[in-house]
């Protein structure tokens, strides 16, 4: 197994675990954590392809990963704010009980 393949397999594993967390957990915060894990796995792919690319000095993959980290931070802040707001309204963070559009 070449080094790049190893990193790609690790990223695929973390992505699948994050997807499983987002799909199977009831708590909205755990769904957000699963999404963060998936974003991180994508970043690992970008950095690995950047490292083994023919022209790493162009910095494309690295810049993608840095901007993606910034967007993920913004997403986490807004998502957790929404979870807190919904909890205050519905008194639960369980997504299976959030089945009403109104009130």
């Amino acid at each position, binding site marked *: 197994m070449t*080094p*790049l*393949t190893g990193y790609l397999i690790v990223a695929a594993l973390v*992505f699948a675990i994050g997807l*499983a967390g987002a*799909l199977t957990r009831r708590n909205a915060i755990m769904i957000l954590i699963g999404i963060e*894990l998936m974003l991180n796995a994508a970043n690992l792919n970008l*950095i690995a392809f950047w490292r*083994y690319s023919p022209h790493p000095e162009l910095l494309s993959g690295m810049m993608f990963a840095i901007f993606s980290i910034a967007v993920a931070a913004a997403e986490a802040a807004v998502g957790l704010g929404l979870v807190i707001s919904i909890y205050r309204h519905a008194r639960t*963070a369980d997504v299976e009980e959030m089945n009403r559009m109104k009130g």
Partner: protein
Amino acid sequence: MGFVFYLISAFAVGGALAAVLLKNLVHAALAVTIAFFGLALLFLRLDAQFAGFAQILVYVGAVAILVVFAILLTKGSEVPKEGVFSRSWLAGLAISAAVFAVVAWAVMQAAPSLPNQSAIPAVTVNDIGNALMNRYVLPLEIIAVLLTAALLGAVIVAMHEKRAKQG
């Protein structure tokens, strides 16, 4: 592919797995911090020092703290009686296993054509700063606007509703 790579990968994957499986949300948040830290170590091993330290600062420093705050504000540290997994957990598990199988198969199929050896990239923080100010200045400005909007939006969304009605 040395021993260090396997050790760090076990850290990252084990942390992620523990985060998804642990019932107590505070424990899950700590486990996901370990996973973020392991991924940052993988970035450092890929000679991406700036991205690795940005990962530690943003994820281990900020996102993990935000998650813990949200858990405590929503009383998420109590384990619910009806369990932590949804009713359709089997379908979710099957979908994620299928996604992993497809991605791993694709990687293994493409493995012979992927580059496997290259020189260590000689990239300094100076080069990254120059690139951010020249070629990537427009995305940088857009990210700045996005972060400001997200900050204000998160505060407004999480603000108390009664206070909004009075004002």
